[in-house]
């Protein structure tokens, strides 16, 4: 995991036999037109950076196409994306299953809330990445490692938001429940859920972003398969175009997750002023 500083500006580096260039790869069956366009691109990029010799190799050879066209059809790319999203989804699921009920229990009683406050404050300041070495020792490079670390990072916002959600419920609602003889289910459906859900969905949005961040960080550090380890691999062999392509992929995944969560929020709390858009 330690870095050997590879100097990309070393002119001999590109011709080194140890560096496998992307166009040497057999799965890159490129057409003549492709090759021609790439050579043209190379020429323009070289011309553009002529004044600054050290910088040109750092910037992508083809910032425009970003190698996506070639990566697009490969199993390597889609496997990486699928693995990252699998650990993202599993991690988020476990965090929700543990964090939300626990937070609701903690928030429902002021004495419990005060008792656990110090512990929660202490534990949530430890970045979950700090447990990566321990997880690697215990599980190795396995799906469990990213999932557990994602859980350790994402459970806190969910727990804290659910605590708020349960503790801010209007006490009058309890009296209403008693005087109207509401059943347990009616209480959950018509009183508890409407006042708690906005908080929980906010926690969910924060947690979903943290999940992606942790997933990529764990893959990058531990070499567990996924977008993160592809980034790391591209860095080590200094294929800047591939590197940019995966950074772009990570950004697109981030946006897609955000869109998904906003949609979910819309579905879950469609009646809330923040969603209806007439908030003051």
């Amino acid at each position: 995991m330690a870095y050997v500083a590879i100097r990309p500006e070393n002119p001999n580096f590109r011709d080194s036999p140890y560096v496998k260039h992307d166009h040497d790869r057999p799965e890159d069956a490129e057409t003549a037109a492709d090759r021609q366009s790439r050579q043209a691109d190379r020429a323009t990029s070289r011309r553009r950076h002529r004044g600054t010799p050290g910088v040109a190799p750092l910037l992508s050879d083809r910032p425009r196409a970003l190698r996506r066209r070639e990566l697009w059809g490969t199993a390597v790319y889609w496997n990486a994306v699928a693995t990252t999203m699998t650990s993202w989804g599993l991690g988020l699921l476990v965090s929700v299953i543990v964090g939300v009920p626990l937070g609701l229990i903690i928030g429902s009683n002021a004495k419990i809330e005060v008792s656990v406050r110090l512990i929660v404050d202490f534990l949530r300041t430890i970045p979950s990445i700090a447990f990566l070495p321990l997880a690697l020792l215990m599980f190795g490079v396995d799906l469990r490692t990213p999932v557990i670390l994602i859980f350790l990072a994402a459970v806190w916002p969910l727990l804290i938001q659910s605590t708020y959600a349960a503790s801010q419920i209007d006490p009058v609602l309890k009296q209403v429940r008693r005087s109207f003889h509401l059943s347990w289910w009616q209480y959950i459906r018509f009183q508890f859920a409407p006042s708690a859900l906005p908080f929980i969905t906010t926690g969910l949005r924060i947690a979903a972003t943290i999940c992606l961040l942790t997933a990529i960080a764990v893959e990058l550090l531990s070499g567990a398969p996924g977008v993160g380890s592809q980034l790391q691999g591209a860095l080590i062999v200094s294929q800047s175009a591939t590197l940019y392509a995966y950074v772009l992929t990570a950004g697109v995944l981030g946006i897609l997750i955000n869109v998904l969560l906003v949609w979910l929020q819309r579905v879950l709390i469609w009646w809330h002023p923040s969603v209806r858009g007439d908030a003051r």
Partner: protein
Amino acid sequence: MKGTSFAKRFAWEIWLPIVLLVVWYFVSERFNSFYCPPLSEILSASAQIWIWQGTIDDVVPSVVRLVSGFIIGTIAGIVVGVALGLWRAAEDAVRPVLEFLRAVPGVALLPLVILFLGVGDSMKIVMIAIVSFWPVLLNTIDAVRSVEPVQLQVSRSFHIGGFDRLAFILLPSSAPQVFAGARTALATSVIAMVFTEMVGSPGGIGYFILNAQRRFDTVDMWSGILVLGIVGYLLNNLFRLVEMKVLRWHHQMTSRAQTGA
């Protein structure tokens, strides 16, 4: 729990952590697992490591990097945020780019930053600054946007412009939200600190933990994690103190509004 005395409140806050520590102490003594060594060993190792050589070698550089990166990112976020908040056309123009860059997980940028800056201190500080930049920026834009319109009108009729308007109207009224963004930024910059130290050059708490794992020294590893938690907790409380001091007028105002006085 309002109205109870300070001592009683403190007792309620402290009892569970103490119970858990005691349980951990005795249970870990009984089951001698390789992954979770006895707490007594961790504590004695911690005393040896962190008083004071380890603190000077690892904790201080980490905290210096964290604080400098955090301050750079926060100030950059405030400056750019105020500019974009005031200049609506520019904000509309760069909004899509901002949304995209914000969605890129900060850690995915690490290989790029390494490509440009190597694995030294500058890379770590820049990474910490990058991840703390976004929450502050977005909160500042929103805060500058939502300044009370009457205040702006008053400032216009009294011909308060330029620097005075910035220093006495815009910044104070956006400060609470900027602080909310900075609090999020602090949490993510601690993550970035550990993360960059694990890939970067030796030195720092993150490197210490990783190195202990490579030596299969779980006792040292746990003591590193404990110290990391303590440092994070102290930094959080320090931030809260600064916020209380800077925003005292705001807290007084909101509590007065709540009591109806």
